[in-house]
């Protein structure tokens, strides 16, 4: 115990350079654990976004693109799917349910999705959870809207509020559908999926707002909201649809049929498989990030080694005095080991605290802008292992200055010529 006290008191002498070493270790631990945390949470967020859907069908496109725009609302569709194709495939004996999705509008930065009331019945996420209403109910009339939890929180909406939808993903005044306001009739519970940041309306609502937009921009002949609601609002095309089959054994067969659909070019994907494929691709970047973080940790440890080596000369007298009062030669080595262990352990603790502080601060920002939900957890086994490796490495590195000091203390005795 005395040795530890001596080590700490001696370290206090060099507190400035050692604090810098502690800080750099803390930064590298922060980086390592931060990267580890983010990649694990991101993966969980992606995997938990959709479940119990057997196929997603859209216009012919790469599987990852179709998955990203239809479920994660990232990116855009290459083309639309005709409503006829949707109805034809839905009518197959094999298909149990099929829910249409129509994208392309937004509301103050949040995506608007047109669908039907089946969406609330068949969309599942995480471990077989279905959508629950915090308040209200699904849309009934043409201009009803249901909003996700984050939309309500961010824009302070309540039931009965009127909202204007915009054309495209971000629009100026001329691209607002301001002649046809929608009324909020339902607010969903938090799901930690992109649904939280979506405004859901009926397919008929999407048709109504575009009824005088057929040329691609607002037409001079305006059709009022009431008139539009009475017109036949059967959609001609949708962006994509999700479906479930009666028997999962036939998923591959149905997928092939849809991919070879003669009337228009379609792609059908199995969400689970495409997610796995997406993650395999991203996984390579994850590994590179971890390698970079490990290199940063090595840099921090090298900084500590430098500090120990450069102060060796000053400490010769200190070692000589300790030897004189009865310390054994190997105590010198142990002193150095204790000092570097102390620095690394303090650095790790500081790093974790900084990580928690930063995570708590940016949690809501990242959730709103990237959809990834960061949870502040105590370190898991893998992360504890990282700590242990850091401490062990520091002990090993400290052997270098320790051994040099050991040899010198044998030669010097009390007559230290500095």
């Amino acid at each position, binding site marked *: 115990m005395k040795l530890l006290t001596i080590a700490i008191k001696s370290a206090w002498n060099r507190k400035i350079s050692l604090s810098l070493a502690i800080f750099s270790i803390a930064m590298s631990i922060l980086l390592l654990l931060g990267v580890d945390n983010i990649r694990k949470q991101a993966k969980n967020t992606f995997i938990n976004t959709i479940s119990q859907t057997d196929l997603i069908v859209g216009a012919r496109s790469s599987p990852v693109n179709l998955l990203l725009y239809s479920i994660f609302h990232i990116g855009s569709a290459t083309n639309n799917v005709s409503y006829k194709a949707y109805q034809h495939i839905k009518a197959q004996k094999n298909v149990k349910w099929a829910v249409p999705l129509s994208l392309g509008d937004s509301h103050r930065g949040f995506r608007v999705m047109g669908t039907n009331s089946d969406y609330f019945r068949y969309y599942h996420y995480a471990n077989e959870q279905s959508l629950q209403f915090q308040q209200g109910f699904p849309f009934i009339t043409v201009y009803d809207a249901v909003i996700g939890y984050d939309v309500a929180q961010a824009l302070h909406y309540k039931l009965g509020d009127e909202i204007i939808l915009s054309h495209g993903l971000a629009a100026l005044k001329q691209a607002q559908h301001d002649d046809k306001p929608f009324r909020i009739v339902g607010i969903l519970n938090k799901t930690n999926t992109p649904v939280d940041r979506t405004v859901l309306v009926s397919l008929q609502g999407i048709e109504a707002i575009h009824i005088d937009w057929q040329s691609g921009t607002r037409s001079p002949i305006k059709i009022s909201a009431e008139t539009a609601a009475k017109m036949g609002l059967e959609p001609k095309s949708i962006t994509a649809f999700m479906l479930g089959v009666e028997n999962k054994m036939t998923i591959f067969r149905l997928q092939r049929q849809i991919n070879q659909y003669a009337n228009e070019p379609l*792609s059908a994907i199995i969400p689970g498989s495409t997610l796995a494929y997406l993650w395999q691709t991203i996984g390579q970047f994850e590994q590179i990030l971890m390698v970079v973080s490990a290199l940063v940790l090595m840099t921090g440890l090298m900084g500590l080694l430098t500090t120990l080596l450069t102060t060796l000369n000053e400490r010769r007298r200190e070692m000589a005095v300790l030897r004189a009062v009865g310390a054994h030669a190997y105590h010198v080595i142990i002193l150095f080991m204790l000092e570097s262990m102390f620095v690394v352990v303090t650095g790790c603790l500081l790093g974790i605290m900084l990580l928690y502080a930063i995570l708590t601060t940016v949690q809501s920002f990242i959730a709103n802008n990237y959809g990834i939900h960061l949870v502040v957890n105590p370190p898991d086994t893998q992360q504890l292992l990282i700590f242990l490796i850091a401490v062990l490495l520091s002990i090993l590195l400290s052997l270098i200055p320790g051994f040099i000091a050991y040899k010198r203390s044998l030669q010097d005795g009390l007559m230290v010529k500095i």
Partner: protein
Amino acid sequence: MNLKIIYLLLLLFTLVACENSNQDTASETSPKETPQVESLTTIDWDNLIAASHSEEAILAKYQKQIDSLEEDSPELGELYSKIYSELDNAPLNKAIHNKWIKISGFIAPLSYHSGNITEFLLVPYFGACIHVPAPPVNQTVLVKTASDKGIKLEDSFEPVWVSGQIQLEGKKTDIGTAGYSIKNANIELYTEDQINL
């Protein structure tokens, strides 16, 4: 002096203990649930095809017709389509119903639970997942595992051994809904020396 050495030993101990516990949680190699571990039969994908169904038999049946038609004629094209759909018929092998088996294959994930894959289709070759023409119904097995025994996403691209009781499910109707399934399966990864490339 003794205390220091004890500190160091404690540290090393913790490290070793952590390593061991890591290895235990990482490997799911013991099929604990299957009662008759010794009687797991390793089968091949050909065992999933009904014995009576063979390519040679079908081709032999149509051989005379093939020979009688000229090349590139539309009738020959139609005949080939007919033959393909019959080959495609994919009858199941009823003899292996309820047997405890072990079969190897690749995973096309369907459902996840807590980040692990707990329901998937097992297929004979990789690439059946995305848009390569799919294997027929008698070359696909629907596998479900207990929610804590799923396979990690990172491990799901390698060939795996799946063991459990295989069952024929569903009735054969005009859309061919019968198929193989294994519930409560155990999954093991292929080891390096088992893969012969």
